[in-house]
């Protein structure tokens, strides 16, 4: 993590336009900016319950203050060691969120597009499986802590594999 990077855990909403502005104006080397925004969907299929879908009232996001920021900064440092990037932003919201609310932002600025795409995807895959966030779903009046998704764990395994044998 250097001064051009930004990691933030906040209950406030974020503005894609502001974050893009920051990333695209950092310096004139920037030729590519990839952004990812995650939104709360209004249904959540729970694999344990035979793929039933529920109407989401809201999500409550808890995190481990201090540890989360350390982990996110570590993930950013890993991405910058792996690819030639100009700047990175990671913002994750906590607290109570409603359907269609923004949850997470990842933005990467680089000279060329491939680095920005790969790094943004890497950051999201790691964030999903390493950063200390927990989601409680309130749907149809019932509260339930969400389980980790196997597909997210698989996504990270792929990156570890990539670093050993490129295919």
């Amino acid at each position, binding site marked *: 993590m250097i001064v051009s990077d930004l990691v933030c855990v906040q209950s406030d909403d974020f503005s894609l336009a502001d974050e893009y502005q920051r990333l695209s104006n950092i310096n004139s080397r920037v030729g590519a900016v990839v952004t990812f925004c995650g939104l709360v969907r209004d249904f959540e299929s729970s694999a344990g319950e035979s793929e039933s879908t529920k109407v989401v009232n809201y999500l409550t*996001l808890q995190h481990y203050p201090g540890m989360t920021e350390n982990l996110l900064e570590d993930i950013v440092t890993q991405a910058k060691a792996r690819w030639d990037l100009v700047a990175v932003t990671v913002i994750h919201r906590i607290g109570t969120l409603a359907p269609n609310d923004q949850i997470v932002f990842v933005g990467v600025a680089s000279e060329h597009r491939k680095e920005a795409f790969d790094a943004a995807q890497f950051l999201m895959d790691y964030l999903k499986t390493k950063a200390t966030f927990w989601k409680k779903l309130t749907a149809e009046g019932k509260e339930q802590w969400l389980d980790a998704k196997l597909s997210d764990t698989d996504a990270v395994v792929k990156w570890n594999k990539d670093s050993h044998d490129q295919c």
Partner: protein
Amino acid sequence: MINLLFFGRLGDLAKDAPTCIASSGLDPTPLTIRQLMMAEHPELAEALSEPQVLVSVNKMVVKWDQPLFNGDELAFLPPVTGG
């Protein structure tokens, strides 16, 4: 004293559990503290024993047999679900 934190679903089960525990006496580790819970908080202790639960000391993930010292912050972390 060792401070205890429980996150996610573990927090709901730990509502009546202590938030700290004496560090003297038993050469404490996350494992021995989990075992101590068994008597008074069996449901919590069982949830802590699930293989996916990780432990951190002072915000670093550690093994269950990591020695603990006075003032340490021990956290029990169920599988994360951010993003």
